[in-house]
């Protein structure tokens, strides 16, 4: 009898079917890897398992030890022996290691915490895991790798029998990865079943008993690790054909507009960690340059640093229209003619409580409205063209941005940047979370803009989007450029191989 069975799990979000009948099993003491492209449904599946989406918000059955279970929250799943270690750690940095491990259930008498007992138990637990961490030290003073291990200790202190690890090695050094793996081996021997989500196929093959591939919310295949290979897995991850929603267009390429050389960007939180490592690229007038890569590959950071918006350490050389240029702030970049449709429109793109007009004119306010005094009349006049050409559906330009659909919000952000009259336009995940119709409209607009001679740099986690729109694709993997392909050579398999660091032919 399997330890865990998930049958025909379906989960819908407004307009999107994130999970479309996923079936997944986990045996006692098994190491089962779950792989797939960004957005394939891995995280959603794990949120179903952990009760983040409670019973009733999805269809399908979860069975543990042969008994149907239904979780109404995370606490229920924890009690059932499930522990999830998410990419973003859920530790309280200001508290000690011991306190974190026993957060919410510290040994206590009459409501007073028994500190001696707490640290004794924590110490014992850490020793069992072979970790030389003082339970009294503050979590914030530990490196990310050690924090990850503390998170695992916390999970084990709850007697977890099913351990889910979501990209646990992304932030770890090689030595830390080895420590983690030896701990995972021990846990396996103790009978803990592990679900391991990772983009690093080397690790997946090294550790797994079985590998399941998710794509578009479905289980494509489940293999014994010994019966498949990386190329096979990559082919299954990519799978689908590039459909014809991408109109075939021929872009007339002009001169090189922007040349970025030796861009190196350091993490804000860990100033020694390179999130972008010595990447160079250029983009021509009328060209769409795609930047592919998996989550955390450093794509947004690369653009952010060029745009003068990165708040951590970075170094780079830039040439615009053949002349060296230095951009210290987004303001400099906008003046020089760079526009940046940032990812996460709600967080970085829009002021949700303001109107479409206020949002759209913000980046070009002095140009479209007035140098010192604003003029609604001028702004309305300026906004007319993007409202029309982008087909923004709203009762008027005075509609509050927060009330619009995702697609229309994204068009407002795009309109904002078009009003700055850029020579180079960066697009970071321009179609994330919007419906297919709006996506297609944005694709058409991207092609139209390229035809007018705009140089476009497109970052997208959706591979078909990059392949369908870009004239040329560069691929990043863990901050390094691992591939560059012209359109004819950019096949899904090659790009995905480069993106997973499994490049064979560059």
């Amino acid at each position, binding site marked *: 009898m399997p330890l865990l069975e998930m049958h025909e799990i379906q989960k819908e979000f407004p307009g999107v079917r994130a999970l479309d009948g996923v079936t997944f099993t986990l045996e006692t003491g098994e190491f089962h890897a779950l792989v797939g492209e960004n957005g394939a449904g891995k995280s959603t599946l794990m949120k179903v398992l952990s009760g983040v989406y409670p019973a009733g918000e999805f269809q399908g059955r979860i069975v543990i030890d042969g008994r149907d279970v239904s979780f109404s929250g995370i606490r229920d799943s924890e009690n059932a022996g499930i522990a999830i270690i998410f990419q973003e750690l859920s530790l309280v940095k200001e508290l000690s290691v011991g306190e974190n491990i026993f957060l919410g259930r510290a040994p206590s008498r009459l409501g007073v915490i028994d500190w001696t007992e707490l640290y004794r138990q924590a110490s014992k637990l850490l020793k069992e895991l072979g970790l030389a961490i003082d339970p009294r030290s503050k979590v914030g003073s530990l490196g990310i790798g050690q924090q990850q291990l503390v998170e695992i200790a916390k999970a084990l202190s709850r007697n977890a029998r099913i351990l889910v690890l979501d990209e646990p090695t992304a932030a770890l050094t090689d030595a830390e990865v080895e420590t983690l793996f030896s701990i995972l081996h021990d846990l396996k021997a103790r009978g803990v079943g592990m679900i391991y989500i990772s983009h690093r196929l080397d690790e997946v093959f090294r550790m797994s008993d079985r590998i399941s591939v998710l794509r578009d919310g479905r289980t494509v295949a489940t293999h014994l690790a010994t019966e498949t290979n990386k190329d096979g897995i990559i082919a299954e991850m990519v799978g689908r054909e590039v459909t014809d929603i991408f109109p075939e267009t021929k872009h007339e390429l002009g001169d090189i507009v922007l040349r970025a050389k030796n861009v190196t960007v350091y993490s804000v939180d860990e100033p020694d960690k390179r999130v972008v490592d010595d990447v160079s690229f250029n983009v021509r007038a009328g060209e769409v340059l795609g930047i592919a890569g998996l989550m955390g590959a450093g794509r947004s950071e690369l653009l952010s640093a060029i745009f003068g918006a990165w708040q951590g350490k970075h170094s780079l050389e830039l040439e615009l229209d053949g002349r060296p240029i230095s951009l210290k702030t*987004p303001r400099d*970049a906008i003046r020089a003619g760079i526009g940046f449709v940032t990812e996460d429109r709600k*967080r970085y793109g829009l002021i949700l409580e303001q109107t479409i007009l206020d949002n759209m004119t*913000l980046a070009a306010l002095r140009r479209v409205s007035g*140098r010192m005094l604003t003029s609604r*009349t001028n702004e309305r006049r300026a906004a007319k063209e993007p409202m029309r050409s982008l087909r923004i559906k709203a009762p008027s330009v005075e509609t509050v941005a927060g*009330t619009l659909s995702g697609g229309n919000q994204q068009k407002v952000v795009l309109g904002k940047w078009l009003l700055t009259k850029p020579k180079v336009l960066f697009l970071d995940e321009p179609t994330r979370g919007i419906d297919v119709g709006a996506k297609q409209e944005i694709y058409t607009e991207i092609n139209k803009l390229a035809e007018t001679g705009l140089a476009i740099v497109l970052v997208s986690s959706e591979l078909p989007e990059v392949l369908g729109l870009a004239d040329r694709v560069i691929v990043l993997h863990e901050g390094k450029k691992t591939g560059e392909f012209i359109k004819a050579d950019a096949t899904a398999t090659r790009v995905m191989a480069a993106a997973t660091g499994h490049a064979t032919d560059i």
Partner: protein
Amino acid sequence: MSDSKSILTNRAALRAYAMIGVLAAIWILFHIITPNHTFLTPRNLSNLMTQTAVTGVIAVGMLMVIVSGQIDLSVGSIIGFAGGVSAYVMTEMGYPMTVAIIAAVAMGTAIGLFQGALTAYVNIPSFIVTLGGLLAWRGAAKWLLGGNTIPVSDEVFKGIGNANLPVIYGWIVAGVFVATMFYAAYRRATSADADGASSLSRELLKAAFPAAAILGFIAIMNAWQGVPVPVVIFLCVAFLGAFITNSTVFGRYLYAIGGNADAARLSGINNRWNVLKVFGVLGALTGIAALIFTARVGSALPDAGTLKELDAIAACVIGGASLVGGRGTVFGACLGALIMASLDNGMSLVGVRDFMQDIIKGSILVIAVGLDMAGRKQS
């Protein structure tokens, strides 16, 4: 979704009408319960407006600071210090009034810029910077005045707080305002493009209500002794503040920064520089408020302006500003200041004891914001 615009503008308008309604209710209530029904007399209303002036001038600046997502707790203490500077410059150093006025406003501005710089460029939260300022500038005021009061003898200076505009000037000012309002309405109706067009008669009708209010206001003030000078200053500041927040690039940037600082920065706005400037504006207005206060009392007091920061913040919040930033209007803040001053004035007339006044004012602030939040949630 199709009528979300009209709902929102209606909500904003509704809010303004509701506040005017609350103000009217307070006034009528006090008029009924004051002995001899003295509240709604030209004399008391003139007095009430003068009392509103100091808080109102600061509230306009505070509103801009709050809109940008910051706060300033030190303005009350700056009133004490800048007022002290003005009296010291005249009485102790023997300089003429103009020097004293410049000194007070310059001192307020300098302090505002200094605190703004600590907030914007050294990344110390403005709550902390100005909490420190609350203590430090009060200390500075006591030190400058040696713990005493410094009297002012210049009658023209005292006029800043006590004189009245001659009746005829009042009418001239009213005439200019009314003419400007109708002209602006005419401009709006004729120059707006199809998207924002609105008929001439509708615009003129919209201008009629404020025009009538201004004429009525001047008539009442003139029925006593003319418009008090502090009130003239307050109204100028209020119009200037409304202009800055509604019609300047700087004003739009403040709402953007308070609404979403990341989006503002990525849109090329220099958040730090604008935050610095807005603290400078509040500082300058605080200097002006200090002059009104000192002139009205006729001397500089070491504890002048105590708790004025809270009155100003309360005025903004009652007027619909959000302490998270991004939302609030100068008009709302001015009405808020008037409501706070009405409570002070009315309760004093009725003879409510000081401590009871404080309890009532505190409760009303919390209830007002509570009702506002409940209203927002419902929509």
